[in-house]
């Protein structure tokens, strides 16, 4: 029983970051009908900046928690600004163009990864523990830091869900995702919504990076693993579907957690790919995807 709980908690912790990451991917696809492979680069930039800024603030006698919060705000702001630049000078011209946006985003991945490697160096970076100690829940030990960051990820996901379901902006985004021409006929400004949708998606990726920074090893290639997992989650859940991305992310985290325990991480990864194939054979548009 304790093992099962340990695996479940592990899956929830891993899944919370996957959810934030994949929500950004699915949002961009929903609004612009493109797959943004450069999404991981905004996530990576945010984590890298946190890893540079926290020690810098700490060195200037700022206590660790405020230093982290300040660093996270700056990192997210810079990442979103970079996202907006790539939209304004790139993705804007490739809306609803899968092959064009694919080439652009792959080019951006290479460019940004090279730039990060040049400016941040290839050595791994870490952020000092923001909150020390472990907590025990139902006999399962977790670090306080992971627990808190997992909760923060859940709150961010909840906030996004609320925005999409309740606010006018969220409703407009959903309308554009369903049928952008019909949405425009109803007076919804498609271009503005696409811009704002891209911004929100980048924000989610950047927040995920900032949250992950204190519990992970940060390097310029950090985003690659998350991009693959996030993309698989979105494929399983259905491209463009918000609940689908959440279900897909949790599904992957569960397979990773259980497969990694009973077999090994390599087999767990292989299993994820096999399950994706099976899901796509039965539901080619994903579990909750629309045609």
């Amino acid at each position, binding site marked *: 029983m304790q*093992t099962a709980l*340990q*695996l479940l908690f*592990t899956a929830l*912790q*891993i899944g919370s970051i996957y959810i934030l990451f994949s929500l950004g991917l699915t949002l961009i696809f929903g609004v612009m009908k493109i797959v943004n492979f450069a999404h991981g680069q905004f996530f990576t930039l945010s984590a890298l900046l946190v890893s540079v800024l926290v020690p810098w603030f700490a060195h200037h006698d700022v206590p660790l928690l405020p230093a982290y919060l300040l660093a996270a705000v700056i990192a997210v702001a810079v990442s979103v600004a970079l996202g907006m630049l790539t939209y304004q000078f790139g993705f804007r011209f490739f809306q609803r163009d899968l092959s064009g946006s694919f080439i652009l985003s792959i080019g951006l991945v290479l460019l940004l*990864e*090279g730039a990060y*490697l040049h400016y941040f*160096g*290839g*050595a*791994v*970076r*870490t952020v000092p*523990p923001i909150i020390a100690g*472990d907590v025990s829940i139902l006999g399962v*030990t*977790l*670090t306080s830091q992971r627990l808190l960051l997992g909760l923060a990820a859940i709150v961010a996901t909840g906030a996004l869900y609320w925005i999409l379901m309740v606010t006018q902006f969220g409703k407009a985004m959903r309308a554009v995702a369903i049928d952008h021409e019909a949405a425009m006929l109803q007076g919804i400004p498609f271009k503005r919504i696409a811009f704002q949708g891209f911004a929100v998606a980048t924000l989610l990726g950047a927040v995920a990076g900032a949250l992950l920074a204190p519990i*992970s*090893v940060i*390097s*310029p*290639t*950090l985003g*690659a*693993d*998350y991009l693959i997992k996030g993309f698989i989650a979105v494929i399983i859940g259905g491209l463009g579907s918000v609940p689908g991305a959440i279900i897909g992310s949790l599904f992957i985290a569960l397979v*990773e*957690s*259980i*497969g*990694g*325990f*009973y077999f*090994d*991480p*390599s*087999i*767990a*990864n292989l299993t994820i790919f096999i399950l994706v194939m099976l899901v796509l054979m039965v539901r080619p548009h994903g579990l909750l995807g629309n045609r």
Partner: protein
Amino acid sequence: MFTKDRIAKVLAGSAAAALLTCGASASHADEIIKLGLSIPLSGAAANWGKGSEWLCNAAAKEVADAGGVKVGGKVYNYKCVAYDNKYNAAEGTKVAQTLLNRDGIRFIGGSLGTAPVKALQSLSEREGALHFTTAWGSSIKGPKFPLTFTIMNTVNEISFPLTRYVKEANPSIKTVSLLNPNDATGQETEALARKAWTAAGVQVISSDWYDRGTTEFQPIASKMAAAKADVIDLASTPPADSGVVFKELKVLGWKGVQAVQVGTGAEGIIATGGAAVDGTYMGAAMVFDSALTTPKQKKLNDAAKAAIGESLNSVQISFYDSVMALKAAMEASQSIDPKLVAAALPTVKFESFYGVASGFGGKDVYGTPQQILIPVIVTQIKNGKLTEVRRIVSEEMKQRK
């Protein structure tokens, strides 16, 4: 006054000086020997590649400052030419073609990563190029590959003395769990690590694999903690990943002896593992602040640290040693023919980075003397600092002295 004659004389003098300089440069350029490097310069292993290139250049400069390589009345200098193999076989093949066929390079100063190295070796042996490599696989050595030389201690050299030492230091240990990356390097390491632990009287109760690039190690840490082994050996797991695994294991309450058999550097593991990696044994790391550290080692390490952001590791150090080995063999054979230089390599002694007179040996193990002879340095992390606990010199090395 600037008369026409004076201006003409100055111009003529300048032209003559320029011609002489060009002539000198041209003759200097003729005496450059290019050393090809097939190394990762992007992706997760980029820093290994950057450090390797940096050390190759440092060694080439040292050779030049000492008067160059003197062969047949001529003086040669080295120039390192690096290409990114991205740590995979496909890119390794492209790099091999570029180095050997396009650039016409006949001396490979160093290659990194078993998969890209195998791709390079298949061409370098055919093309008659001398190839120094850091790849651990024993399958790349032997009479079939007379032009390939391994320039760092491999699992074969490290595993047995290290496990023996760990068992001696911790006599109560009886079981071990292994973890390796699921690639050519990991698979070759796992097979040898298994044999070494068994030979040391420690039973291997589990052995797991993970994919390079993995960022979440909680599931595998849970599994390894549940196995309750006395020792956890992360074998060929890179330092940064090892730190994360040990950290997760501590959270789960596992307590035991920790080892990373072919752990190459301490900074990565300490950065990611913090206090959780205290006590970890490693077999391929180098200490730069001990009483045994030479001023030259310290100077090179400090300069490398400023350039690449972290201390040198044993993989990168090999790229320095290959340059020194090549210089010694070229001067001994008085030739720049790769085959003649390769034939001379097992007979020469040279001053390696480790500060000892090194050479090539390993005929009993590999069939031909293609393995560099340097000591195995057993290190342990104590209070967040890497310390050398034993320096093991092989019998063959002792006999050479």
